[in-house]
């Protein structure tokens, strides 16, 4: 090799940043240009490896990156300018943080010598984002950029994943200042070493408890999807023949149509899932965090059960509910070890007790089983709309949602058989998430069916992105469950405020069909139940168009079951007239 070829390439900070992204295998950068990132945008312009996706609002860029990550397992990358560009990204960063989604957010910053002077478009992004990031970096020397980017990706994607902000003052990316570029293969940090495997003694104890249980249940969350352990979970559940319930974030980790699946648990969980949890004597929690929307009143949570808790994040364990057998480790490797131990175990399971347990579960299933009334309205029922969408896509679509009643209906009635297909803002509950999320997925999986289930309230929080969809030919489908109200707010007002609809009525809605047409897409309004199936078929058949289905649904519908706040798992409203 000649000496010249060994000399490191000389690159500007902006070029080093883009090259670092390439080294990380980044395919897309979602963003919006502005003063502080112009050098970076110029470097981006002069290469073809990474596609930049221009959104219409920075929040949408973060949700696109987030959903890309949720569907693919790889960190999504966002690039925004300083000041308002960065602050607009904050909601999306918080959304990713709450659901532990790997994401890299590159924010421009004013020139380093101007920091602290209240310069134009200056904001303390490190400070503003601190509570909602896994970590953040500020670049002080352009030469540090490759190492910082390597660390950023490593931190974002390893352990319990999360968003990482990299704040880059404009003078770090000046085109004429060149530095030797070397991208590290590996990065070691003495202060950050995520656990690689679980404690084998604890795992043994857990298997023993699980095999000796008489009324066991597996309660699994988003960690199984993030930890790519869906296969192991399914295998173990089938070996044990125990019931499985998923959290809102965990749907799809275990097949939704499997007979061992008892549905989602929690506030709007199925009757059978919540009853089984409450009556269980042994709960195996995998990659779940005992969120208040799951446990109801934590001090009343499943008092008869031995709780085994597997999680990669030690701070999750015994945070809300004490675990009897805690296991800190990656869910995939822990489940693998458990499977091996189960195979070799001499413990004889109490099949009679398990038979009785399943009998009780079947009775609960029969009592409610996700039924809803169909005889009280001429209008379409939102539940039915989701069921039909599920049927016509064979339960195989990527479904994103916004936040509210439609989100719960989608979670309850779309039966996800595969992980990474159900994409919603579970932790933060961000309205406006659904459309950009669907865009992030559709761009990466153009041949897959991608449906954004939304409502007329949520969709208007990021509807400008229909323009981005046109620009990039993102032919997703929007299922707008239009009931003319902020449905979930209205439901709580019905239940707790004697139906005083304080600002939950969405006045002066746009004509969605005309609106989407003006963006260059296809709009359909569906008012009659008999029109639903043909319209859905037509929409799904239009592979090369974005179709927005404005579906007029029954406005008085509530989401049930619904746990009674501050009660036990088993305290539920089952319909407008029944409670447990």
């Amino acid at each position, binding site marked *: 090799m000649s000496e010249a070829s060994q000399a490191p390439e000389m690159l500007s900070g902006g070029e080093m940043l883009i090259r670092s992204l390439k080294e990380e295998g980044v395919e897309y950068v979602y963003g919006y240009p502005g003063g502080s990132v112009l050098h970076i945008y110029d470097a981006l312009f002069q290469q073809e490896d990474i596609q930049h996706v221009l959104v219409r609002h920075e929040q949408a860029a973060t949700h696109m990156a987030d959903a890309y990550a949720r569907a693919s397992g790889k960190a999504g990358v966002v690039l925004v300018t300083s000041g308002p560009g960065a602050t607009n990204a904050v909601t999306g960063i918080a959304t990713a943080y709450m659901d532990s989604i790997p994401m890299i957010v590159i924010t421009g910053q004013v020139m380093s010598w101007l920091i602290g002077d209240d310069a134009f478009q200056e904001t303390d992004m*490190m*400070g503003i984002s*601190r*509570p909602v990031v*896994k*970590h*953040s970096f*500020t670049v002080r020397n352009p030469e540090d950029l490759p190492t910082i980017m390597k660390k950023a990706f490593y*931190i974002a994607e390893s352990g319990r994943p999360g968003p990482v902000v990299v704040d880059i003052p404009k003078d770090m990316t000046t085109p004429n200042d060149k530095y030797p570029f070397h991208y590290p293969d590996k990065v070691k*940090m*003495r*202060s*950050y070493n995520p656990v690689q495997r679980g404690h084998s003694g604890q795992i043994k104890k857990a298997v023993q408890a699980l095999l000796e249980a008489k009324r066991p249940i597996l309660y699994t969350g988003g960690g199984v999807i993030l930890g790519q352990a869906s296969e192991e979970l399914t295998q173990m559940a089938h070996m044990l023949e125990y019931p499985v319930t998923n959290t809102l974030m965990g749907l799809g980790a275990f097949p939704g149509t499997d007979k061992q699946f008892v549905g989602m648990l929690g506030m709007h969980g199925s009757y059978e899932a919540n009853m089984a949890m409450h009556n269980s004597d042994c709960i195996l929690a995998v990659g779940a965090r005992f969120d208040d929307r799951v446990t109801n009143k934590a001090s009343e949570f499943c008092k008869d059960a031995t709780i085994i808790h597997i999680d990669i*994040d*030690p*701070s999750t364990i*015994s*945070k809300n509910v004490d675990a009897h057998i805690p296991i800190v480790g990656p869910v995939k490797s822990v489940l693998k070890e458990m499977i091996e131990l189960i195979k070799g175990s001499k413990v004889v399971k109490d099949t009679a007790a398990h038979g009785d347990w399943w009998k009780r579960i079947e009775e609960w299933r029969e009592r409610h089983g996700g039924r809803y009334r169909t005889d009280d309205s001429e209008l379409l029922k939102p539940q039915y709309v989701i069921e039909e969408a599920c049927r016509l896509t064979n339960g195989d679509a990527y479904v994103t949602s916004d936040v509210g009643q439609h989100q719960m209906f989608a979670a309850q009635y779309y039966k996800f058989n595969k992980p990474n297909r159900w994409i919603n803002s579970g932790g933060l509950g961000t309205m406006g998430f659904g459309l950009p999320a669907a865009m992030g997925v559709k761009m990466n999986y153009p041949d897959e069916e991608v449906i954004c289930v939304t409502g007329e309230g949520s969709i208007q929080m990021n509807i400008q992105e229909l323009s981005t969809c046109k620009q990039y030919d993102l032919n997703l489908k929007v299922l707008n469950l239009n009931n003319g109200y902020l449905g979930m707010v209205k439901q709580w007002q019905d239940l707790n405020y004697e139906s005083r609809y304080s600002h939950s009525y969405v006045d002066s809605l746009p004509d969605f069909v005309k609106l989407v047409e003006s963006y260059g897409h296809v709009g359909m309004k569906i008012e009659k139940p008999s029109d639903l199936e043909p319209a859905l078929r037509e929409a799904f058949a239009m592979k090369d168009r974005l179709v927005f289905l404005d579906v007029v649904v029954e406005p008085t519908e509530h989401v049930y079951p619904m746990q009674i706040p501050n009660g036990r798992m088993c305290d539920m409203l089952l319909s407008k007239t029944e409670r447990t």
Partner: protein
Amino acid sequence: MRRIISVLMENESGALARVVGLFAQRGYNIDSLTVAPTEDPTLSRMTLVTHGSDGVIEQITKQLNKLIEVVKLVDLSEGVHIERETMMVKVRASGAGREELKRTADIFRGQIVDVTASTYTIQLTGTSEKLDAFLDAISNTTIMEVVRSGVSGIARGDKVLAL
């Protein structure tokens, strides 16, 4: 219960803000906090005094450990340890009380580090309890100013918090 948590962390700007932010964000108490670089200039050592139930303390140590810049930490109150805090008190010292203040400072092994015709500045080092007791003992004098360093701590014996 009162706890003393010692933290070794990367000596980087922003690290302290993350710790303080964590306490504010999650509603944990900080009774005192001191931080300074160690003999290794890449590391800072922080001593945090906090109080809370066992569950809260467990969460505090776990959440602190989760911060990327935190290298290691120990709850000193779990074992035998030495804690020290330094205090400087500026008091009105005139007339008959002047001599009495000097005597009290001596009893507490305090030092008078600055003197004017009408004031003493007394420096005192010890456990927080001892400093409180001193302030109590001179409560009949006019205390003009109190400045306390916050607690530093170290484990007794061979145990060390180091890399």
